[in-house]
């Protein structure tokens, strides 16, 4: 390939990602250090490159960490970070507990079933996220299907509140993110060499013993990938908590959204977003570390 073509092939997607992915984050960081202002755009200072070095100096001298101080000191924000992390952690765990047996069952199903089973899981993932969450409103609301059934059966006298609770949030999150846990685990299990499992059975391990000592450790890459794919996006989830959740359990996705759209405090929204990214660096680095170790062994 000629050098020119080579640089074009790298250059086009590279510049797209730099411009529309990396640079935006640099701007977010800049604005997170600014102050809110009654102006357009609603923050100050604004970098004025035309004034040359003096303009740049003036810009940097006006930046401070006030917003971060506010986010870290105000209890509301701290609680929402904790709530979000808890939400992510519990959802990931539930997805793993539910998803692993399903992935395992698909991997051990007869060959002719597999494509159809994968298709069945895939299909739910393709269906609109919003619609799948809406389906739970139909089921869980006070006049919802579940309350109607329970009333008809005489189990309850008055509708019980299921919608707008933490329980509903978890239900919706597990429902929405379960396919993301199933796919990578299935992919790892599918590639496993059965002879290792059989060898451990021949050596006297029970079914469960072989599973715990052989299959489970060997499927770790899939488990890690699944947990990563669920944990990171759920931490900033906005749609599920705002449609199904309890408004007295603030989560960071909703707080950021409200600061931005309702309060119009852009610098504060930017610093909430920077802190969320910092929190997410931990699982990302952990994942990279485990993946590299897996690749080495």
């Amino acid at each position, binding site marked *: 390939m000629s050098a020119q073509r080579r640089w074009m092939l790298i250059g086009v997607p590279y510049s797209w990602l730099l411009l529309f992915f990396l640079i935006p984050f640099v701007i977010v960081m800049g604005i997170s250090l600014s102050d809110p202002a009654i102006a357009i755009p609603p923050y100050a200072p604004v970098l004025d490159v035309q004034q040359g070095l003096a303009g740049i100096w003036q810009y940097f001298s006006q930046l401070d960490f006030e917003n971060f101080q506010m986010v870290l000191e105000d209890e509301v924000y701290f609680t929402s970070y904790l709530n979000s992390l808890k939400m992510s952690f519990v959802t990931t765990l539930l997805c793993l507990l539910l998803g692993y047996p399903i992935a395992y069952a698909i991997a051990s*199903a007869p060959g002719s079933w597999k494509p159809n089973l994968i298709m069945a899981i895939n299909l739910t993932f393709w269906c609109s996220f919003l619609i799948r969450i809406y389906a739970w*409103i139909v089921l869980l609301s006070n006049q919802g299907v579940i309350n109607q059934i329970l009333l008809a059966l005489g189990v309850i006298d008055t509708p019980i509140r299921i919608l707008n609770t933490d329980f509903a949030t978890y239900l919706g999150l597990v429902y929405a993110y379960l396919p993301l846990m199933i796919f990578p685990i299935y992919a790892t299990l599918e590639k496993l060499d059965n002879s290792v499992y059989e060898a451990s059975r021949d050596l006297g391990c029970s079914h469960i013993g072989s599973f715990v000592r052989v299959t489970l450790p060997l499927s770790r890459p899939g488990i890690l990938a699944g947990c990563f794919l669920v944990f990171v996006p759920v931490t900033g989830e906005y*749609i599920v908590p705002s449609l199904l959740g309890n408004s007295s359990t603030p989560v960071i*996705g909703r707080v*950021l959204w409200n600061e*931005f759209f309702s309060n119009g405090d852009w610098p504060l929204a930017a610093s909430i977003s920077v802190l969320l990214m910092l929190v997410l660096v931990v699982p990302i680095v952990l994942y990279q570390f485990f993946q590299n170790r897996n690749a080495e062994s």
Partner: protein
Amino acid sequence: MNRNLTWFGITALTFGLAFMYLPILVLVIYSFNDSEMVTLWSHPSLRWYQALFNNGTYWGPAWTTLRIALVSSVLATILGIMISLVVTRMRKFRGRSLFIGMTIAPLVLPEVITGLALLLLFIAMGVERGFLTVIIAHTTFSMCFVSVIVTARMAEFDIATEEAARDLGCGPVMAFFHATLPAILPAVISAFLLAFALSLDNLVVTTFTTGPGITTLPMRVFSEIRTGVKPEINALSTLLIVLVTAVAVTSSLMTKRAAKRQQQLLAATA
């Protein structure tokens, strides 16, 4: 892995599939419910479908959403294939790890973060927000999903086929279009469809990057369902579910047929 399906496995599958499909099924059934009270069953009718078609406020957003999805998924497919080519063919260049990182991060980063970041970029650049900015935003995350699917297929692709085409006198671009592209086409099609579906469905990034006058279908639906159940939305959901199912099943059948044909071709040449 080739073990037998145990009773535990069958239970897990049945429970899992029931959990995933029952809510959707209930939604579809209730879309044919005549009752004004959304969840009280009266008798089956197409009343809410009629109401949906007569309600003009859904048509504009639906058309906008389709146009955005079409343009952004075409762009995302082209850029995604380029990413895959770089990832699989160019093992060494400066800034490769940054490049790989930037193609993976949008897959997992919460949408509120990427949406906010893009909006602040557009404002800093002084771009008027609307149709174009939403397309750019959708393309940016969709292209990364495309590259995941296409890279997986390209890793299996035998580079010798492309080299053979080069030996037979093809230029690198010709060789790509005549040898590589046909081989990875099933993956490209499913990647394109996924990009299309992702764009069709996106709410958070769209809300951040859109401007006055541009409302998409998910934005319209979200503002309706925030206040509870709406029978018209049941009908709309059912139509969308049928559409997506049809597209997904067709694409999977096409992929299967293409794979089969390729195998036959390989068997014939061997």
